Each structure stands twice: as structure tokens, then as C-alpha cells.
């Protein structure tokens, strides 16, 4: 193929690091290379790692966008549209270079499936684009399962000494499927079955329940927006009706909408629309305003569950 094809290819290595020293050396080398090529660069990693990189770069950190991934990527579902595409789309015309660390040891068991699916879907979201995204993985703190998933979600793997090779386990679709796991609602959650006639009613119900359970102010407004999008999707695309449920877990509110439709597009809600485009923002809004989204979809139905920290 022509060199143009190579130049336009998406490059997505995982970096397996064992200590701070390797972390700093590899990330700094990655950014120094980008600087030499004049590429726009962003670093989205957890706060303490952000400081390590910033300190190591010194004056060379100037011009790089630094984001704390524990905030920008609190919900892994918004990292593609808001952080990665957000930065890449703002810099059209040449290759952009990003360090993204969405998986860290503190991610909970509830969050992790969404993290793994996010890492997998990056490959679909950036196929054929001149973007390089390096994803660091802490080899000493993360479990063998997480590290194995990273080998499936990244076509390239790099060790702490900078040796890079193709991953023989690369299969991102398998990871999307593996974490498309059934979501079981607690038996005592309050639920409301709705049809098209009930859209305002089910929204009011969710707001009243969430308010009783401790949500208030901006959080309650975000819940109302998210519920409106999910219930409307059920009515318009998901078979005409659905069931909404609301409950709490320690420190957070959980809300889910189940319907009889199937969501065939794994990138739904992660493709930023053009400003003048009419549709395509519903599920993305849910990703933007909530702290975690879990999704289970099969031919028999779809459940979208979102979490709001209280």
C-alpha cells in the first residue's frame, strides 16, 4: 500500500509497566517522539501519574493537554467521545498522539467490564484515523485477567524496556462480547412499566424515587435527562415499551431501563455527532452525565443501567 495508508493508520499500543521509573521513561519517550513530529498531544491518566509525567517533561510539557482520567474518564463510556475524539477532532489534518490510562487498580468490579469494553471499542472508533493512543497498564497492581484483556484489546504491546511487538491475542470483538454480561436487578428495587403514553409519567416517577433515595440538585436533573433519553429510546426503538427501576447501593444511585429491543451497534452513544445533526445524542448524554453505564444487549432485549455517585 502507499505510504499515505500507513500515515493514516490507527496505532494503539498497550504499555505494560512495572514501576514508576518505567512508566516515566516510556511515556516521556512517547511524548518526546510526538514533539519531534510536531503532533498535537494529550495525556489523560490518573492524577498522580499525570504529575509524574508533567514533572519528567519539565518545560517540554508546555502545549500538551493534561487531563485527570479519574475525572474526565470517571465513566469509561464517555472517554471515546469526550476525551479521545474530542481531542482528535479538534486537531484535524495530521496525526495526534494521546496517552490514555482508563484502567487502574482502584477500578471496581462493577466498573471494570465497562473499562474493558471501552478499550476494545477504541479500535473500532479510530479505525483508519491518523491517531496514536498509548494505554499504560500497571503490571504489578492489575490482575492477570485485566492484563490478558489488554492483550486482546490492543494490537500492539510494549514492555517497560520499550520493546514493542504485535499482540498475538488481539481480538477486540471478543472482549466486547465477553463483558456483555447479564445485569440482575435487586428484588426490592422499585420498578415502573411504561409504554409510549407513559413517558412523562415514568420520568416523574424516576425523579420522585431518586429524590426519596437522596439525589438532589444537578444530580437529580442529570437523572431526569438520562431517564428521558433511555425511556424514549425504548418506546421509539426498543419495541414500544419497557421497565424502569431505581435503587441505591452504598454511596450511589442506580437506575436501569430494560426493553425488548436489541442494540446492534457497539459504538452507539460514542460517536460525536456533527453540530447540525438532528439525532444521535441520547445515549451519549447518558454517558456524559452519569458516573458509570453498564449495558447488556441480546436478541431478547436490552438493559441499560447507569450509576450516579451521591
Amino acid at each position, binding site marked *: 500500500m502507499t505510504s499515505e495508508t500507513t500515515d493514516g493508520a490507527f496505532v494503539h499500543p498497550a504499555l505494560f509497566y512495572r514501576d514508576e521509573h518505567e512508566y516515566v521513561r516510556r511515556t516521556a519517550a512517547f511524548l518526546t517522539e510526538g514533539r519531534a513530529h510536531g503532533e498535537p498531544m494529550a495525556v489523560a491518566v490518573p492524577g498522580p501519574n499525570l504529575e509524574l509525567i508533567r514533572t519528567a517533561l519539565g518545560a517540554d510539557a508546555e502545549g500538551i493537554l493534561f487531563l485527570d482520567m479519574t475525572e474526565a474518564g470517571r465513566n469509561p463510556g464517555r472517554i471515546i467521545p469526550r476525551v479521545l475524539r474530542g481531542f482528535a477532532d479538534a486537531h484535524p489534518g495530521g496525526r495526534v498522539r494521546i496517552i490514555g490510562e482508563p484502567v487502574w487498580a482502584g477500578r471496581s468490579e462493577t466498573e471494570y467490564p465497562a473499562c474493558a469494553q471501552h478499550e476494545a471499542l477504541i479500535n473500532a472508533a479510530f479505525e483508519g484515523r491518523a491517531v496514536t493512543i498509548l494505554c499504560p497498564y500497571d503490571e504489578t497492581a492489575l490482575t492477570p485477567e485485566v492484563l490478558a484483556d489488554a492483550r486482546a484489546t490492543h494490537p500492539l504491546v510494549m514492555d517497560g524496556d520499550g520493546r514493542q511487538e504485535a499482540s498475538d491475542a488481539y481480538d477486540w470483538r471478543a472482549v466486547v462480547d465477553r463483558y456483555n454480561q447479564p445485569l440482575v436487578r435487586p428484588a426490592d428495587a422499585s420498578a415502573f412499566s411504561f409504554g409510549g403514553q407513559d413517558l*412523562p409519567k415514568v*420520568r416523574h416517577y424516576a425523579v420522585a424515587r431518586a429524590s426519596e433515595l437522596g439525589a438532589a440538585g444537578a444530580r437529580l436533573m442529570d437523572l431526569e435527562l438520562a431517564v*428521558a433519553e433511555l425511556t*424514549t429510546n425504548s418506546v421509539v426503538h426498543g419495541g*414500544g415499551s419497557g421497565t424502569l427501576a431505581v435503587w441505591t447501593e452504598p454511596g450511589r444511585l442506580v437506575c436501569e431501563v430494560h426493553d425488548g429491543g436489541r442494540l446492534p451497534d457497539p459504538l452507539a452513544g460514542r460517536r460525536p455527532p456533527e453540530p447540525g445533526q438532528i439525532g444521535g445524542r*441520547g445515549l451519549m448524554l447518558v454517558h456524559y452525565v452519569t458516573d458509570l453505564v453498564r449495558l447488556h444487549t441480546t436478541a431478547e432485549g436490552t438493559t441499560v443501567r447507569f450509576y450516579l455517585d451521591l
Partner: protein
Amino acid sequence: MGARRAKGGWGAAVPQNTALEVNPLSDRPGIRVHGEISEVTRPSWERALTELSRHHQDVSYLELSEVAFVDVAGVTALAVTAMDLADGRFVIEAPPPQLSRVLELFWPDLDRIEVTSG
């Protein structure tokens, strides 16, 4: 209201007969809206915006203090209508809080819309 319709079915289950109340403002160019802007009232909201943009000159006002809720599609319709204005802007008065939230997330730099609290 009282319209007979089949229950269930794909895409046919949203009652489209719930109208927003839309009235012209008496003292300045624009409209006052009562109700909720969501899937069930979307057609009448979009009609109101089309009508407003047709008569638009310089500044048009949308008084939304009696609107309890607006969803993403409702804000999208407003943003897209504003983007298509030949000139001038929409001034949105006292909208429900979701309006600014959605504008900030999807159209942070849209200078054809000005939001005022009262």
C-alpha cells in the same frame, strides 16, 4: 387527549397529540411556551421553532419559565434552528435547567443562543 390508538408496536407508540401551549409575546418578538418539551410534544415544539425562525429578525425571544422539562431532542431542535438563522440570535428566558446543561455539553460555543435567567 382521548385519541384512540393501538398500543405497542414499533415506533408507533408515542402519542403525538399532546400539544405544547405556544403563544406570541405581546411586548417583543417571540413566543411564550407552557408545558414539557419531550418526545410527546416534539412535533408542536418543532412547529413553533419553524414558525419563529420564519418571522425572525435580529432578536427573537423564547420565554420558557412555564416549561418544566426539555429533553435532548428538544434542545437539539432549538440549537439547529438557531444555527440556521441568517443573522441575529435567540434569547432564551428562564428555561428549565436541562437546557443550559445540554447546550454546554453539545454546543458550548453557540453564540446564536443567549440564555437569561429571567
